[in-house]
């Protein structure tokens, strides 16, 4: 019997399912950052809003990278349904702490796919995710640096205004 399926598709269907899950996660992250940008705009943190608009775009780019990988490998990329986006935050500190939590979850999910791809011997998926592994190190580091800056600056007096101004250092 000819290997028609393998000739049409370069990765395993289980990898495809995991990557479709990651597409959903990146889309959710993008929508979450957009909600954070909205919160920042409404609460007078205009520089932080710019930061989150940029983050939202980046997450969408990540999503499209995975989407296009599935197209290139002959898979079936699924346009994700995005629900349950939180729009309520108690403070700017809460916003950045939630961001770090979110990034850690994304990192764990990517590491999980790498491990599964390795178990399956799916080298293409494993190598494709190399870029994401390093990108997550950078993303987590950025948010950790911002949280460190918040701690050093403090939120008393003009602290909040100074925090917002300094977020500009992390906008390329």
């Amino acid at each position, binding site marked *: 019997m*000819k290997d028609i*399926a393998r000739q*049409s598709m370069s990765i*395993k*269907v289980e990898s495809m*399912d995991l990557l479709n899950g990651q597409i959903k996660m990146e889309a959710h992250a993008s929508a979450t950052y957009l909600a954070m940008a909205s919160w920042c705009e409404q609460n007078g943190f205009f520089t932080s809003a710019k930061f989150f608009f940029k983050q939202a775009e980046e997450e969408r780019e990540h999503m499209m990278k995975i989407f296009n990988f599935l197209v290139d490998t002959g898979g*079936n990329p699924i346009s994700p349904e995005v629900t349950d986006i939180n729009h309520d935050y108690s403070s700017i500190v809460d916003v950045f702490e939630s961001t770090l939590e979110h990034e850690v979850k994304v990192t764990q999910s990517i590491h999980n796919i790498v491990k599964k791809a390795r178990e*399956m011997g*799916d080298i293409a998926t494993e190598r494709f995710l190399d870029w994401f592994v390093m990108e997550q190190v950078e993303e987590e580091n950025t948010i950790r640096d911002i949280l460190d800056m918040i701690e050093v600056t403090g939120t008393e007096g003009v602290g909040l205004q100074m925090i917002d101004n300094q977020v500009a250092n992390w906008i390329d």
Partner: protein
Amino acid sequence: MNVVFQSTYYTLYQANNERCFYIDFGQKTVRMSLCQLLSLRHKLMSIAIENHFDSDLNSHGFEVLMLCNKEHLFVLNTLEILDLKKLVDHGFMEIGISAKTVAIV
């Protein structure tokens, strides 16, 4: 055409010369590309079969499946859905793009 896998109600075939697959649904046989087979797999995976056992969530116990870009429409009951899931699951193992291994019975 080569038989890839046969379940209780359905049979998956591979047609080498046409580079496609066929599923015999009993009342009709449907020609499918790999993309369409992947799409069927996704639709089946999206079905919450546990809802079939809760009369509030799925009172009739049926699923409507539209296949091959709305070319075909099937109304399947719980047992047929489970059997189709089995066909697709084993079928993907046999055609070599699933990491799962075929259990030796």
